[in-house]
């Protein structure tokens, strides 16, 4: 059976299993209808021209991973930023793992989507925010139809969350291929602050396909600092759909570190619904083999006096392929917008490919919008210079690449995250060198 048919025929069973109120039921049903009509995206769609899902849709995925395999903390500790005190939301095969998690309801909520969707006390928030900014496209609709579990984070007015929150999705699927539909909702009220670290990690050799949707609402003067660490095994593919709505004077930064996985597609969408907003989108991609990473970003400048800063660095080795499609829309009303976009790529190997496409749609006449895109190779003269000073070629290359990516790294605000990313980069580049730039 084709995956789409299998999903369609599973839906009734899914609906029967979940405890839900009627509003959410209605939203799911509409989304299901939408997915039934649209199906999976193909390369015929402009937005999917350079990313084909054909191969990742082939395996016979189990739609509801039944068997939850136990995992020991000692086995998975390395996937956490374990040297910081943090709240943790850990899911194993799509199910909440209370043993590995640390939630709270003290004066803010770090808990489960399944609870938020079903319990009366969350109903007002769900009615106001759930599925309000998620696009009604193919894969987001698919996720919405099966939306049940994930992170639910609610930070009330003026609360500054002191510890970061880690959201980790493990997949153990030892019997078959696994498909996951994690659904996160993050509401950060006026003048509240939160930092979040998100990771998807396969612990199996079977294929994994994760289709995640995250909605983030940042109210006036809210501050959200979000890190996505993508360093999965080559059997795991990820479509990450993140939608962010910002109100006046809020700052939201999303850093995406894509170091591994089979096919990784990041759809990162910012909607600015107030004035004096700052949206920050940064990413480092370092891949090899036949890995594929696609960054599709959208910043929608709707109101005047806002800023957006995009900086994506990519290093592609062997036969890896990359896509950067950065869309900036500046509406007629959005005067005095300052939109900056930078995308720099290094192809280490002749066989590696990058498709880079800045896309600016500007309807206002008093704006500053800049974009720059480069594709190049490592500088041999710089490499010789380093070698001449005693730095071996491999380490020299690594140092050059590290320096290249450093503009993104230096804006990471959690030192332990920065340290971890630095280590991951050194490991990826196969060097044992104390980068301390």
């Amino acid at each position, binding site marked *: 059976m084709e995956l789409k048919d299998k999903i369609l025929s599973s839906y009734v069973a899914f609906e029967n299993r979940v405890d839900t109120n009627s509003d959410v039921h209605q939203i799911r049903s509409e989304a299901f209808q939408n997915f039934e009509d649209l199906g999976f995206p193909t390369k015929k769609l402009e937005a999917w021209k350079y990313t084909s899902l054909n191969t990742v849709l082939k395996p016979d995925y189990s739609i509801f991973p039944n068997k939850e395999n136990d995992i020991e903390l000692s086995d998975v500790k390395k996937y956490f930023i374990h040297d910081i005190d943090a709240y943790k939301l850990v899911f194993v095969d799509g199910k909440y793992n209370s043993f590995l998690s640390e939630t709270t309801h003290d004066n803010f909520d770090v808990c489960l989507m399944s609870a938020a969707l079903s319990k009366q006390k969350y109903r007002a928030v769900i009615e106001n925010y759930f599925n309000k900014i998620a696009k009604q496209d193919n894969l987001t609709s698919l996720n919405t139809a099966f939306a049940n579990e994930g992170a639910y984070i609610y930070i009330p007015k003026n609360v500054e969350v002191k510890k970061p929150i880690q959201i980790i999705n493990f997949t153990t699927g030892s019997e078959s291929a696994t498909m996951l539909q994690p659904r996160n909702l993050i509401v950060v009220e006026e003048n509240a602050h939160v930092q979040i670290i998100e990771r998807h990690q396969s612990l199996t050799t079977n294929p994994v396909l994760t289709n995640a949707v995250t909605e983030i609402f940042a109210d006036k003067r809210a501050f959200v600092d979000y890190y996505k660490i993508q360093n999965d095994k080559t059997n795991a593919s990820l479509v990450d759909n993140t939608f962010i709505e910002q109100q006046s004077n809020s700052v939201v930064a999303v850093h995406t570190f894509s170091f591994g996985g089979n096919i990784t597609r990041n759809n990162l969408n910012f909607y600015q619904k107030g004035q004096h907003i700052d949206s920050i989108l940064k990413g480092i991609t370092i891949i090899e083999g036949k890995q594929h990473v696609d960054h599709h970003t959208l910043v929608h400048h709707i109101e005047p006096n806002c800023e957006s800063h995009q900086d994506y660095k990519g290093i592609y080795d062997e036969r890896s392929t990359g896509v950067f499609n950065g869309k900036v829309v500046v509406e007629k009303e959005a005067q005095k917008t300052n939109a900056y976009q930078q995308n720099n790529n290094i192809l280490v190997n002749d066989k590696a490919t990058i498709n880079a496409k800045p896309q600016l749609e500007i309807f206002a006449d008093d704006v500053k919008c800049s974009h720059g895109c480069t594709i190049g190779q490592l500088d041999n003269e710089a490499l*010789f210079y380093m070698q*001449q000073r005693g*730095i*071996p070629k491999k380490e020299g290359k690594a*140092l050059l690449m*590290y320096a290249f990516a450093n503009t993104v790294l230096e804006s990471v605000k959690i030192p332990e995250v920065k340290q971890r990313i630095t280590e991951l980069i050194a490991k990826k580049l196969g060097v044992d060198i104390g980068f301390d*730039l």
Partner: protein
Amino acid sequence: MLKIENLQASINDKSILKGLNLEVKAGEVHAIMGPNGAGKSTLANIIAGKEEYEVTNGTIELNGEDISELAPEERAHNGVFLSFQYPVEIPGVSVTNFIKTAINETRKAKGLEDMPAKDMLKMIREKSELLEIDRKFLSRSLNEGFSGGEKKRNEIFQMAMLEPKLAILDETDSGLDIDALRIVANGVNKLKSKDNAVIVITHYQRLLDYIVPDFVHVLHNGKIVKSGDASLALELEAKGYDWIKQELV
């Protein structure tokens, strides 16, 4: 220290060095002069091991060991230092961290532990004072936005830190004003000892007022065509290179 015999080399099938002989002993300073395109920088790059050049004949020995097959970093580990005519800008890597990495990689190659941070800092302080380098300068990205003089001073600072056996200064005087020239030359002179050697490659006699050579060689058309003592440099300054070309005819 360095012994080059019948060195022939080319780049993209274009022959540049055509049978060059040179011997440099420990404690000596040699100057290599010559007109544009004579092959001076090529010689410097070949001794340092730049891969684009093909050595078609001859040998390069450092302390009795043939180094012509070694990678550039291995030559550096053996004590070869080349001060670049055009030092490369490396954004994102500070001067301090670059030199730390260079020193520790060299130590690693010799089977030594990393230099303790305290010793490193002390050495950085001493050597930067020697070259009158401001502290702030050391935390800037390597060569990025440096003036010509700053780049050259930074090269000599790295040389001071790495303590090479054989230092080759390729046009280190170009782009230097007179004060910077004095500082750089002063630095080189202080680093000079009976155990190391310096090759100064230059167009002009100016630098040799400060770094006084034991020998001066004229490189022309891929060969050393004339050698002498420091007075040869003065003669070249006064008369240019044409008389040497004519002598050869």
